[in-house]
């Protein structure tokens, strides 16, 4: 049977590269506008508050609460077929940043909004590390 590789972030994407490199170092990095100091996530070319285009990347905490989630029973991509049911969890971190990751634990069907989660980092290859959430 043909196996399909997991879809992975694009390391040629300059906008996302600091985030991708941060995950490799087990850090969660988000954009901070150098002019108005607003945090921006997901990253974009312009700051919607002041319309400037210069950013720093800062680290945010690795624990937060589930803002919302999805529990998937029919995989939309064959790599995930062996994972169903699996969770996609959006965790709200400090300053309102909400970050996506998977939840592959046995008790996936018990996920609820408000649950406390912390980040775990799954090494995929030399360039890519992806995010998993785990209950605190």
């Amino acid at each position: 049977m043909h196996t399909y590789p997991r879809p992975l972030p694009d390391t040629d994407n300059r906008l996302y590269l600091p985030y991708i490199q941060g995950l490799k170092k087990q850090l969660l990095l988000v954009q901070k506008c150098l002019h108005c100091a607003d945090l921006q996530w997901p990253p974009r070319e312009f700051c919607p508050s002041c319309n400037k285009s210069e950013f720093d990347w800062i680290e945010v905490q690795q624990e937060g609460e589930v803002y919302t989630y999805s529990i998937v029973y029919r995989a939309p991509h064959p790599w995930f077929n062996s994972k169903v049911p699996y969770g996609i969890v959006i965790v709200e971190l400090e300053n309102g940043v909400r970050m996506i990751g998977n939840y592959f634990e046995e008790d996936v069907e018990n996920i609820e909004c408000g649950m406390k989660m912390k980040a775990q980092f799954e090494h995929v290859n030399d360039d890519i590390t992806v995010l998993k959430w785990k209950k605190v």
Partner: protein
Amino acid sequence: MSYKTDAAAIVGVGETEYVRGTEKTGRQLILESALAACVDAGVEPESVDGVIMAAGNMITNEDFIAALGIRDLKFHSHIKIGGASSVAGLIVAAHIVASGMASKVLVTAGGNSYSGLRLGSGDPSLSKSIAWPGKDIRTNLEYPYGMVVPMQWYSLHANRWFYETKADPKGMEIVSLTTRKHAHLNKKAYFRNKTLTSADYTSSPFLVKPFRLLDICLETDGAAAVLVMNSKEAKRLRKHSPVFIAGGAEGHPDSPDDLSNRDSILSMGITKAAPRAFEIAGITKDEVDFAQIYDCFTFIVLRQLEEMGFCALGESPEFVKDGRIELGGQLPINTHGGLLSQAHITGMNHVVEAVHQLRGDAGKAQVEDARIGVVTGYGDFGDGSIAILHN
């Protein structure tokens, strides 16, 4: 009855067959529906001078010029806000004919969403070949985590809604069953002969919680089109009474291509668009006789009822009870069967059904004494559109 913004009217509607499996290309289907709309209006296809292509990439203005023999195309536009495109395109058409830039504008939608790449197929090319907005977000933050298709995006919204409001999940079943009942009255509906019981609904599998298979719309092949003219000229046509466009609007959520990081995932495009549309049309919600509400998922019908103000946040499951949204009820919805049970024609089939209701030729599904109808669209990551029509 007339309204200050009654400058434009729908004079013709066209639909292909709604099927699962066809030899025809998406382009053929769209052109077929466009020609049917001209015939319905009693207008020579060659005299069409505007085309608006709602959603999809399978057709160009050149295709219309060639197939319809258009002599002088004065306006064309592509509207790309997914399921909100059909109604948004209708509103653009109204403004174009009102301004005089063009006089006969087709608005078209449809294609091969069954015979082509199916969103429900699990095909690995889904994450590569569909040009959603926010490509960087999709590629870097969603596809790697197995979030690829709309049913998953909508589940993020639905799960937060249930958490914040403690809304009754039964509301989704009521929408599913009501819509199917209406499909039985519509000879074009894909599910016209397939009954649906509460037991069928509750035993249908979850594809992504909280959505069961029967909360999710059809994938079909087909196309639909409407022809819009300015009201003065429309009144001179003799085949049908014009259906007037009293008003309409589109709206976009904040953080428009990212569901997760907008302040509230419950705030949508129609939240902004609906009050604008009602104000422009100069009508109140109490005057609405029926609504054709974009129903790619049962729950998004409930949410649009709330955001349009027909009921309060979290109360839509209560609102839809006791036959209120059925034919004969206070606000019949999706009297043709909707995307859930008629066909997924990106909501252009909702516009067509609204026209039938207001012409009084909706057959067994006719809303008695229908004067004013609402049609909505919902697309991509929460874009909304709404049109208010009357006869």
